[in-house]
């Protein structure tokens, strides 16, 4: 059965373009221009993945509201924010509402599809028992590349997809400095310096939630970041 993707986007041309791209990849796509239509459809039947814009027709923050309601319907449903708004505040709010990723519309379709695929892969992986070979252990860190989940000292650290990929890229070769470009490539994303910096910051903070003394991500000024065990 085809996986269904819901695109909630008020701009018809974008919605159709995304729909076309996802259809080409073999997904069943349904588009909704606003929160009411989307919610009506979701209550009837949940999609397998939702791509949501923040501002929806008459509601500038409609996407956030929709995300909250959707999380209420399902805790596992992968949700991606895809928006023209790229402020730090929006990203933080979106991720806090339980979105799996927060992407700006700069992202190419190919990257977007890669993310969607990855998220589906994770959903599938979560349904299967964990495969040991996919798991990377670095001291207190346990990283499951298939499920895209991270544990620190046995406690789950909830990372967004982009954050997970950054951590994954850093921990693959601990001690090696990864520059920004490498991190962006790993995360399938095009970000400016400040966004990378804030991602790193958020990652550190999330680890620090479970371990106050967490200090494994080092900044190498002028070059990039590295994972220190």
């Amino acid at each position: 059965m085809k996986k269904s993707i819901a695109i909630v986007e008020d701009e018809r041309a974008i919605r159709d373009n995304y729909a076309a791209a996802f259809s080409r990849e073999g997904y069943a796509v349904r588009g909704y221009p606003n929160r009411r239509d989307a919610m009506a459809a979701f209550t009837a039947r949940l999609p397998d993945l939702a791509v949501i814009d923040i501002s929806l027709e008459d509601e500038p923050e409609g996407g956030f509201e929709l995300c909250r309601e959707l999380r209420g319907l399902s805790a596992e449903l992968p949700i991606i924010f895809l928006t023209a708004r790229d402020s730090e505040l929006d990203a933080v709010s979106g991720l806090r509402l339980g979105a799996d990723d927060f992407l700006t519309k700069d992202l190419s379709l190919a990257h977007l599809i890669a993310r969607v695929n990855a998220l589906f892969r994770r959903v599938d992986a979560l349904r299967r028992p964990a495969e040991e070979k996919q798991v990377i252990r670095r001291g207190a860190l346990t990283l499951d590349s298939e499920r895209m989940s991270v544990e620190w000292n046995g406690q789950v650290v909830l990372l967004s997809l982009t954050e997970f990929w950054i951590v994954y890229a850093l921990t693959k070769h601990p001690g090696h400095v990864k520059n920004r470009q490498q991190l962006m490539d790993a995360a399938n994303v095009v970000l400016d310096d400040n966004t990378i910096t804030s991602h790193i910051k958020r990652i550190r903070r999330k680890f620090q939630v479970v371990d106050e003394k967490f200090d494994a991500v080092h900044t190498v000024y002028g070059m990039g970041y590295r994972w220190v065990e």
Partner: protein
Amino acid sequence: MGRISDLLNFGPISPFRIRTKLLLLALTTLALPWAGCQYAREMETVLRESEQQSLLAVTTTIAGSLKGRQELLFRADSLSALDANTTRDITPLVLSGAPLIDGRADEWDTNARGVVRVAGPGNDGLRLLAATHERWLYLALLVRDDKVVYDGSEMTPLDPDTIGDRIWLAFDDKRGGQQRLFFGSTGGGALRARRIETREYGREEAVEEPRIDAVWQRARDGYVLEMGIPLSLVGQHIGVLIDDRDRRGAARASFGTLDVADLRATGRLIAASPDLNDHLRQFAQPGVELTVASSTGAILTRLDAPALPGDYTHMRGFLPRMYRLFLDGGAIPRGVSQVERQRAAEALTARAVLGTAESTLFAGPYENRVIVAAAAPIFAADGKRVIGVIQLAQTADRWLTLRDRALTRLLNLTLFVTLFAVGAAFWFAGRMSLRISRLGAASENALSREGSVSRVLPETAAKDELGDLSRSFSSLLGRLDEYTGYLRTLAGKLAHEIRTPLTIIRSSLENLESESQSANGPSTHGMGENARVYIARAREGSERLSAILTAMGAATKVEEAIAHSERQRFDLGALVRGAVDAYGDAFPQRRFACEIPAEPVDITGAPELIVQMLDKLVDNAVDFSAEGATISVVLRADPTLVELSVANPGTPLPAEALKHLFESLWQSRAEPDKRPHLGLGLYIVRLIAEFHGGTARAANLPDNSGAIFSVRLTR
């Protein structure tokens, strides 16, 4: 206290500043004392004129009381001697006391107008002075004689060989006869007049006249003969003659008022009636001098002023003197000598002789003594002929004192008011200009070069026009702030708005590409080679557009990042060293020289932001230098500040650029570049520097071989 010192410290007085203008304005209150002076002068003129008028009225009244009363004016014997006058006439002054007959001239006013002068041979000469008191006529003969010769013997006055200098006195007697008497002295002292009587056989004998007292005294330049004659002896004419001899018995040289040939007296005796003074005394007032003159102008009598009331001259002190100087200028003739004063009095009398009653004003013999004088003619019974003149003189002290007292009070008051007004105006102006300059400074600084607006202005609570001004400034600034805020966010908003259509274009292009790829191969509707080139170009264009949008949002991003960044303590030296190492890899066509203190340079700040700042500076240095150039990064530290500078060789910056370099959206690139440049790099540098409590500065290298950008941060 701060406010007061502010007020005092408002800088030099320069023209056209408000306080100068207000000060000048306040100085116009100086017109007050001026107006006061004008008023006082008016008052003074009125007072003076009324004084003159009243004095003139008194004078005319006295003159009226004497009208036609010749017998009261003149001695009975001189009644007929009114018309023509000769230089031989004697007009004795009426004295209030009898002079001492002592042969000395010091009691006599030898310069008086009534003096009869007769010139003798050579330097010799005679001055004849006359006066009356009660029933006596006093004569003083001041003889200038280069060689005084006394008689040889008292016993033989008629022996020609013993005769020295002789003085003849001749007058009519009451019976119409002539009395001829001579004085001869053997050595000065009291002497008697003698007359020559012819006795039997023609023998001549000198007989003493006991009724005449006389004293002969040597003087410095001759001798003086002073005598007293009972008026009852003398008729209408009287005269004297000097027989001057160079030695005893020598030929005489005669001069005097007698006919030399027959010793007849032709000069008239014009004397005031003895009752005149009694008559005049009833009109006497304190401070008023009363003078009666004959129609010839010769003074008959003078009643001196009794005690003067008040003392005008006692008003001393700096201010009153200044006032007087200010006031009296021109009104009263000043610095008048006694001679001039006398001349003025005489001129007054001379005009009165012609029949005009008149009053005048002149300065007295003492400084600051002003005299009001009035003269009126005394007419004969027929009311036409002038038989004499009466003149009253009075010191003007009374009204001058009055005026000065009023004026001093007025001037003191106005001066005080003026000083107060000037002071108040100065204070007010100072305060006003202080407030205005504060407001001016605040409004000048309200809009910073970078476009941020401070809405806080002083004076907004004030209720006056300045408050209104400040409030309208504030609202203007508020609107300006909204506008600049709008402008500042415009780039971000625009980027946001453009992003949506750009996304449509890009996703469409990507779809198109995917479609064409999937339809690749033998498909007939696949795209041609040309179409793919166009798609590639369109993608390239949209990517550039996207880069531009990212750059446009960069400043906003940095501002956001700054807002969210946390400060920490870190070693700036290590950071810069690491970063410069990385630049070596990133820009292989440039060499990097690094100068960093060996010891750690710990500062408090956000290291990511510092790195970003350094990135921008180095980017900039790379962009403006040629390949192979050496970019030097220098870090210097002192206990409170660190200075990080990046210098690159290249063309120096134009002066215009130096001013604007760190402003948003400013760039001075000579040639267009492929990469989008929005001139935000150095603006971001400045934002980050300011976040670290520092400043960013650009300059040309001293030898103009390139540019240096430095950032100062507080530690």
